[in-house]
């Protein structure tokens, strides 16, 4: 009985979503039937951008990528740094600071770095400009084109003692005020095991972003005024989490165990979140975050033709020097979308192996990749692949 009451409360608490006036796209897709193709079918050119490796620019991995016309801006948790490389991969600057997230003020060319108590503003040369103290415990942020923010905070470590309402997102004009709230939840059930490290705000590069929920297949396109559109995905049962996984009290405090140590190994195929998530014209691109490697983890959905493609199954051709751009078996991963280009990354050692394979087949790898091959060693930074859509 108690659970039913909680369920009713949870349903009521999500009411603002349903009452919002925004278009809803319901997309039903079976990743097993995602089509393949060649890189050239979708992209007009592919550029491999080795990120300069020197003692100053050495970093671990790309945990978040933001792209501007001139720079590739990288968040690295392993060295607690934000790094700037120019568009050819040459090292430009490094911001050494413990951080949770960062966002860009594209108009002023500033980087806003979030830590536990403040947001620090840096210019694109890595120079600290100012610092704004924040009163709330924010875990992620995004700056809209008009300079306002949407902020997210982690759900609490322990549950509330009585039913109440809290929110995952709120809008702010100055990082401390609250203009509006979105996505309410009951803190009795929505606790720490709900949090899943992932891209929450997927920057579109045009002042808007997609917001991704953990354990749910609803994606929200946000602009400064609120929800602009919603995409609801429906997948086959074998890939879907149980109904009510993110809200039902049955899964309270058991979500992590279910996700990471399920009793049934088949559960490891289920999609945990659709992130990163990007849109380019009529193409929607996302990763399914299944734990098993299925060759259908990175998907592209064409809203116009309602066709699904697996980006992991795009075969390299002459425009990509016969190398794949997002083959999960080579540790390639989708990292960003900007100005008509998809940005993926590959560890240097994995790229060396791929090139080696292509060379064995007697195919040309071009001068740039030959140069990379000559200089790559065990310390070399990851490589970014920029694929321009047709």
């Amino acid at each position: 009985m108690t659970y039913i009451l909680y369920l009713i409360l949870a349903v009521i608490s999500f009411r603002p979503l349903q009452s919002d006036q925004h278009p809803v796209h319901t997309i039903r897709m079976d990743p097993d039937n995602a089509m393949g193709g060649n890189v050239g079918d979708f992209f007009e050119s592919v550029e491999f951008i080795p990120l300069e490796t020197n003692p100053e620019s050495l970093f671990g991995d790309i945990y978040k990528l933001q792209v501007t016309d001139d720079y590739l801006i990288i968040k690295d948790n392993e060295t607690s740094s934000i790094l700037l490389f120019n568009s050819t991969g040459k090292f430009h600057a490094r911001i050494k600071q413990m951080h949770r997230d960062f966002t860009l003020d594209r108009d002023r060319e500033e980087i806003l770095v979030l830590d536990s108590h403040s947001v620090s503003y840096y210019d694109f040369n890595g120079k600290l400009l100012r610092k704004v103290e924040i009163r709330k415990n924010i875990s992620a942020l995004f700056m809209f084109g008009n300079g306002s923010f949407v902020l997210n905070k982690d759900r609490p470590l322990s549950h509330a003692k009585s039913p109440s309402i809290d929110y995952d997102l709120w809008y702010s004009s100055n990082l401390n005020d609250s203009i509006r709230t979105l996505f309410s939840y009951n803190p009795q059930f929505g606790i720490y095991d709900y949090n899943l490290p992932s891209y929450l705000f997927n920057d579109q590069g045009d002042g808007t972003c997609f917001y991704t929920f953990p354990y749910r297949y609803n994606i929200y396109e946000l602009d400064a005024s609120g929800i602009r559109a919603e995409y609801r995905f429906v997948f086959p049962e074998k890939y879907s989490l149980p109904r009510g996984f993110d809200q039902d009290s049955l899964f309270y405090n058991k979500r992590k165990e279910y996700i990471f140590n399920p009793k049934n190994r088949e559960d490891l195929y289920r999609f945990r979140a659709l992130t990163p998530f990007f849109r380019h014209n009529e193409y929607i691109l996302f990763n399914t975050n299944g734990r098993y490697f299925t060759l259908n983890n990175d998907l592209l959905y064409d809203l116009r033709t309602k066709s699904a493609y697996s980006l992991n199954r795009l075969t390299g051709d002459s425009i990509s020097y016969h190398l794949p751009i997002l083959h999960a078996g080579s540790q390639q991963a989708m990292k960003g979308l900007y100005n008509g280009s998809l940005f993926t990354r590959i560890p240097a050692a994995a790229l060396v192996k791929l090139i080696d394979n292509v060379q064995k087949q007697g195919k040309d790898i071009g001068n740039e990749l030959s140069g990379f091959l000559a200089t790559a060693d065990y310390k070399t930074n990851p490589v970014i692949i920029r694929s321009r859509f047709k």
Partner: protein
Amino acid sequence: MNTFKVLLCMGLTLFLVTASGQETQPDMARIKGIVTDSLLQRVVPAATVSVYLTEDSSLITYTISDQSGIFWLSNIPKNTELTTVIAYIGYESVMKKFKITEDGDYDLGRINMSMSETLLEEISIKPPVWMKGDTLEFNADAFKLDPNAVAEDLLKRLPGVVVWGDGLITVNGREIHALLVDGKPFFGGDRKIATQNIAKDAIDKVQVYQREQTSSVMDSITEINIVTKNPGALGYFGKLATGIGISDRKDLVGNLNLFKGGTQASIILGHNNVNKQSDDIFVLIRNSTYKGVGIENEYETDFNKSGDINSSIAGIFLQHDFIPGVDLLKKNTLKLDYLYNRSRVDLDHDNQTITTIGDHEAQFRKRALNSFNRNNYNVLNANYELTRKNYTFNFLIKTLSRNLGANTSTTDRVSDQHGNLTSGRTQQQFQDEENNELDVNLSIRHSKNLDHHVRLPGNWSLLYGISLHDRIDQSDHSSHFISYIDPSVNQDFDRNNHYTSNYVGHHIKSRIGNFWNTLAGVNFDTTLELVNDLDLDIRNINNSVYNMNGLTPGNEMDPMLSYRRQEQLLDWKPGVFWQKRFSNILSNRYEKTGELSVELRHQYFVLTSTSNRGFQNFERNYGKLLPKLSYSFMHQAHQRFSNRANVTLTSTYAFPSVEDLFPVVDTTNIYYIRYGNENLKPSNKRELSSTFSHTNRKKNAFMYDLNLNLGDIRGAFSHFTRIDASGRTSFSLHNLDDSQYISMGANAAKALQFEHQKMQIKLRGNFRFSNTPSYLVIQQDENISEMLNDTRSIFGDASFNVLFSHRELLDLNLITYMELYRNIQKAYDYSISNERYRVESHALIKPTRKSTIGINASYHRNNLYHFSDDYIICNLRISQRFFKNENLEVTAAAYDIFDQNRNVSLQAYDNVTIQNRYNTIGRYFMMTMSYYPRQFKK
């Protein structure tokens, strides 16, 4: 996580894809093709492409398609009707017949597959290999092997899997962590028992996968799981062997092992008089496998065993897993093993004790000992283990019952440096000793769920153990001592001794944490724990000594040697443990982690003795600080190497016992009279120990490890020894400083794999230098000289071991070993050197599938002080299998063909060096008939 799965798939499939790039022989061709799904316009990576002979459907070769759906296969026979089958999960399998008649690569072209709802398990021709999630699965039926092949033969055929000569199994150069059968450990988890017994035809598939140990990708471990066709069916295997030899030699072994579902049971019986002994039931089981004895046989005549041994054993092993099926997270198992061992040893023992006493001066005591020993014991171990969520519960019971009897005659002769006899002693002793022991241990461990109440401590462990040990020792002992220097010290006695000891020990170990998050804020890299070890022991001893003198026991109790005593000991070590973890990680490149640990304990040690002998009533209290500082470092370079290092600094104390302080002195033990020293204080050992290991993760694995230990003992328990001209020796312990040691060790191993050969090279070396102080009082004629002596000891040994195998035909093992010991006295000019060398070679030849020839030869040389000899041991064994199932084996063997075996050993301390020689087994011939009963449901 994504990185993990990707690495996994790359690693496991790499060898399959690269295998296709091998050179092709002239009468062979290469084939290529691309696997596609034309409907979805996509290539199909990881599809299995197998080529069979059309004639008999035997598998020739296979591979899996690469990320572009392309495949290459080498060494495909020309002008032969062939069939290729292409399979992939969720697709209809495609079959193509073809024949290569022309030179050059043969192109199978684009192979188009259609999607299907049929599961891979349901298709008629299953591919030899496929990827299922993170697991590479091999279909056992696809590999045509000898009908009597076992799991090991199948593993050897799997690409990337290497079964080495010493039993090591590697996958792509990495040692496997576990070999499971139907997801469970098979008979205690011993790999040999599983791989050399389970019939290949009973195997459905072999799964190879990696499992994460921690969040670190590089910490993943490789496991192999053998899935049988009938996991719940009753099966059995074992060995019944009867060996009869000349000179009444015999060797009988019976072993039967049964399994059904989660229950496994073994029974073993054995009797022999060829010096084959083991206390471990699994040694007996793993050396009775159907596959037969390999080049390294643990249960074989031990030519180093002392005496002529007649041994009988009986044992059982039971294991039940209460969890049906596979569950990686839970554990609920009960294990029980019991071993009865009865042995009779006829022992002849000669030894020479060299006691240096001055410049080029030494006493030589030669001893001739003859004894008949009886040893019966029963050991029962029961272990219950339960793991649920964050709790691990372990309950362990061990019982031991041992009865020892010995009838010993000893003759000692002491002479000086010039060979002049100074004293002699003859002894006769009959001893009967009974030991009964019960040890019960209960432990509970809890790991905190860090998702909740992260600041509260929640990691804890508690172990409680109780030990009940009883000992009854009865002996009759007569001795006749003559001094040729001073007849006044001559001595005769004949006594009866009745000694009983009753011991109760309670042991509690506990730790709880992490308090760091509570006290200093959330930090997952820092640990602060409270630790506590408590031992509480009570021992009651009753020693009654009766001087016989022709009278019946009880009439003349010796009041000087008899006593009743209770010893109470409290050893409590509470303390604090702090650890800080540092890490530097660059994804896909390297991971460097360091751990700095500090443990600070305070040791309270209280020894109370209550005795009917007044001088043994005392209490000693000590309080000592026990600091421990440790730093561990790990550097794992992605797919290249792994380095681990540790440096630990400790300070520990040794405390004097009742026997060290106030012993009841038996002055009739003429060459080793022990006195007490009531002023003896605890000694403090400060030690720096360090280790370093390197493992190369490339295909031909290479590893080495080094260790270095430096120690300094303050107030070491050192001998204060008095020696007179007759060789009579007495001692007590005194605290002396300047006891130091340094020891170093190194191990290296390299594995090499060629097309048909495998080779393992192992090197090992140890060096130890120590300086041990002692105080000597030498009485020669009327002169008494006292000296503080330092004994400098140098010990070194080194071995070189090569294992070589060629296909299934030949296994070779070459071992060379050398040992050097040198003892130098600083107070006077006398040094003693001893050297030992050994070269061994073992060969196992299989001229036919059913026959085996084993040859072992070893050359031993001992260059000992005042004594040297050399000898050769050579063994030959020829075996032939009979019957269709090859489960009858006849073996003819000749051991120590040249009848030269010796047994020489060495002991040394302070200014004393003891060289021992024992009688041992020599040449014998034996004919053995073995039958291997076995059933594995196919």
